[in-house]
């Protein structure tokens, strides 16, 4: 039957269902809220004018209760847009909201400035927090990011056919495309702590997981991408994997970031890359199912140079071709062009 794989994909990739399984919240209620929020953020919001100041956290209060004494209704487009223009979301408020969009109160004294604070909020007080950051949405349950959409205007529902979808086995091509469209130049993913000095944010691997996973969910109609899934029979967790629904092959993607981070001034380089290769070997060895794996390196080092691979690490037969390495640009295209021209002129003078 032609719908079977599609239903499996929808079922296993829908993180609203997953959030409800974890919290016991009624799935219909949370889906109602999510559908309305998704629809609202796709309306004529002047994103260009408000830019990255558009940050707020929604604390979802379940119970199907209509609030008579409400500040405003989030899903009434005019009320919402007028509040944006009034600066409500400029500094990252916390709004308490029910499934109908009634905003009970706003905690102006408690700004949520970043995703980590939103995570803490979901841990400490309530089960579910929707964190909206410009055009991105995070769904955070009990301190853990369950779902992430990097650009709500570009996203589609898991399972929906998209013009540029590819079979799961073409995952390397999808990784390359996600790099070009979202990672390169921080178009969708923010990873630099200090761009000029080439210092990455802390835990950079985690920063890259979500967007890659989200992209794969969108563009693999015949695969179920997972994050931090366990290798069968072990406690080890893969960064990202895809289950191919056509033959149930697993594609494991191990992510490593090279370079310096905010709290670690030692540059991670060859050794870290080799660790990743060894880790991937172990996963491929331990996993009992039909498995293919690849190493994905995001390279934030000072110099763009090849990795010195340790020849003593044996390559597992299921290791998929060469590792994929992406050198993270810290210069804008125009600055880079100017520098190259400057160097060429200098050379010609010499």
């Amino acid at each position, binding site marked *: 039957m032609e719908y079977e794989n599609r239903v499996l994909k929808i079922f296993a990739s829908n993180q609203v*269902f997953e959030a409800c399984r974890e919290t016991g919240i009624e799935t219909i209620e949370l889906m109602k809220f999510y559908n309305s929020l998704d629809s609202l953020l796709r309306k004529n919001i002047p994103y260009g004018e408000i830019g990255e100041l558009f940050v707020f956290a929604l604390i979802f209060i379940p119970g199907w209760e209509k609030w008579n004494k409400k500040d405003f209704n989030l899903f009434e487009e005019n009320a919402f847009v007028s509040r944006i223009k009034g600066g409500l979301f400029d500094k990252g408020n916390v709004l308490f909201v029910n499934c109908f969009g009634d905003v009970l109160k706003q905690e102006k004294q408690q700004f949520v400035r970043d995703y980590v604070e939103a995570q803490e909020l979901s841990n400490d007080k309530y089960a579910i927090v929707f964190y909206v950051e410009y055009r991105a949405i995070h769904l955070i349950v009990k301190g853990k990011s369950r779902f992430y959409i990097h650009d709500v205007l570009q996203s589609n529902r898991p399972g929906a056919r998209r013009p540029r979808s590819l079979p799961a086995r073409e995952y390397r091509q999808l990784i390359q495309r996600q790099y070009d469209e979202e990672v390169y130049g921080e178009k969708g993913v923010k990873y630099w702590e200090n761009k000029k000095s080439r210092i990455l944010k802390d835990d950079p691997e985690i920063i890259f997981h979500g967007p890659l996973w989200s992209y794969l969910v969108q563009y693999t109609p015949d695969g179920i991408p997972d994050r931090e899934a366990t290798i*069968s029979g072990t406690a080890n967790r893969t960064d990202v994997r895809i289950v191919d629904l056509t033959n149930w092959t697993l594609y494991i993607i191990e992510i490593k970031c090279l370079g310096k981070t905010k709290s670690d001034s030692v540059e991670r380089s060859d050794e870290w890359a080799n660790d990743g290769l060894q880790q991937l070997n172990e996963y491929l060895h331990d996993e009992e199912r039909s498995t293919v794996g690849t190493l994905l390196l995001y390279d934030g080092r000072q110099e763009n140079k090849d990795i010195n691979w340790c020849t003593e690490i044996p390559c597992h037969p299921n290791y998929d071709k060469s590792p994929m390495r992406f050198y993270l640009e810290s210069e804008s295209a125009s600055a880079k062009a100017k520098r190259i021209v400057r160097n060429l002129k200098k050379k010609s003078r010499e």
Partner: protein
Amino acid sequence: MPNSTKSSRPSDRAQSRRDNEYFKRSNEILYLFYSADELNWPYISKIGVQKCLYLSEILSPLKEIILAFLNFIYLYKGPYSKDIQNILDNLVALNAIEVVSFTTTDGNSYADYRITEPGKYLVQHLVSYLVEKEKLDWIRTVTKVIDAYKDSYGLSTQYEGVDKIIDLVYQEPSFKDLKKRGAKREAIPIEDRNNLTMNLVNFLKKVDQRLPPGYEKDRYKLDLETILLLFFEYLYVEHLSEG
């Protein structure tokens, strides 16, 4: 005399059966208005009533509930039952529902309805019968799921409010099959337990068992409401895929 008495009995029984069916159908339509009122829908249009009842009926085997089945046929704007309009008119005459607005354009009439206070009172009494309460609960659940999807992104801008779910009804497998075959005015096999809708529903019921190895299947066991929601999510994804 004896002869005439004898001959009138079967026709009385048939008439009584017809009346009974008619009242059952009226109750079910009233339950839809009652459920909509709980969700603060300001009204339901004629189109909305047709689509909501169609989904409640075609999915009712999921709950093993017996509704007084209406006959739906495939028409241009989706599944249509001519009985519904008669019942709506009678419910208005009984003051159980009221007309919120009425317009005619190009010979077509458009009306929006909502439940009245006497209508709500009637429902509250009807549901003291367990079988009626079960029907209300089912229609209430379907209405909630419809409510969850009616404002979703990408649904027709030609319609408003609950009428927007027409896009999802077009994706409903039994209806879609007739549409694909161009079988206009043909009856939709609502009562057939092996129709395409039920095939999909039966797959959804066991979807946790179909997951690839490595998934903790117990964790993914679905309750009835989530099966229903997954059915709607499928319709929505199909609609978006046609984009």
